[in-house]
């Protein structure tokens, strides 16, 4: 586990997360990126302000990488944005490098699903009419429970 920050102020640049060379024993690279959508439940969205409990979020993101590596035998990197993002900006990136495609897809899916339930980050949506609100979330779980 490295000490590199996995929380990033502002939008993520997906290409930066693909720059690392593939390990020679890997034949599969799976990437998921989440981006800010311009509509939610029929309301026009102009952006999202992402809030986080930084210390706990960093720890949980690192735990997801470690747990995914153990479960799927894959090399997993996760990063999440905090602060103001606009429509189209990338808020989350999951990169998986593994021997074959099956575990790459599985680890990528597990990592994003787990992140949404275990990392203390909150979306505050901003709307075209000037209003803003925090989205309803899910009670936080431990990574091992996911």
């Amino acid at each position, binding site marked *: 586990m490295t000490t590199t920050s996995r929380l990033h102020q502002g939008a993520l640049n997906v290409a930066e997360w693909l720059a690392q060379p593939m390990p020679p024993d890997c034949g599969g690279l799976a990437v998921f990126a989440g981006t800010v959508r311009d509509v939610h439940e029929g309301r026009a969205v102009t952006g999202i302000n992402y809030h986080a409990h930084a210390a706990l979020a960093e720890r949980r993101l690192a735990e997801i990488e470690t747990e995914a590596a153990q479960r799927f035998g894959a090399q997993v990197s996760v990063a999440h944005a905090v602060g103001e993002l606009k429509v189209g900006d990338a808020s989350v990136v999951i990169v998986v490098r593994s021997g074959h495609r099956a575990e790459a897809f599985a680890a990528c899916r597990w990592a994003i699903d787990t992140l949404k339930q275990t990392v203390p*980050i*909150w979306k505050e949506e901003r709307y075209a009419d000037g209003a803003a609100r*925090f989205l309803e979330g899910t009670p936080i779980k431990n990574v091992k429970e996911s």
Partner: protein
Amino acid sequence: MRITVECYGASQRWCGAELVNLDLGEAATVADALAIGDEIVAGGRALEEGERLALIPPVSGG
């Protein structure tokens, strides 16, 4: 004792502030989905003078 509660997400709106100071009796414990430092803490955990307690409302990252 006096402790500080850190409010995140919608709890900032409920409390009207990012930080709330609480004066508690001795032998106070943590009650709900709360974190201290970089860990979620259990409800029975004893509190110590000067600690910062974070409210963790339901999460919505991604």
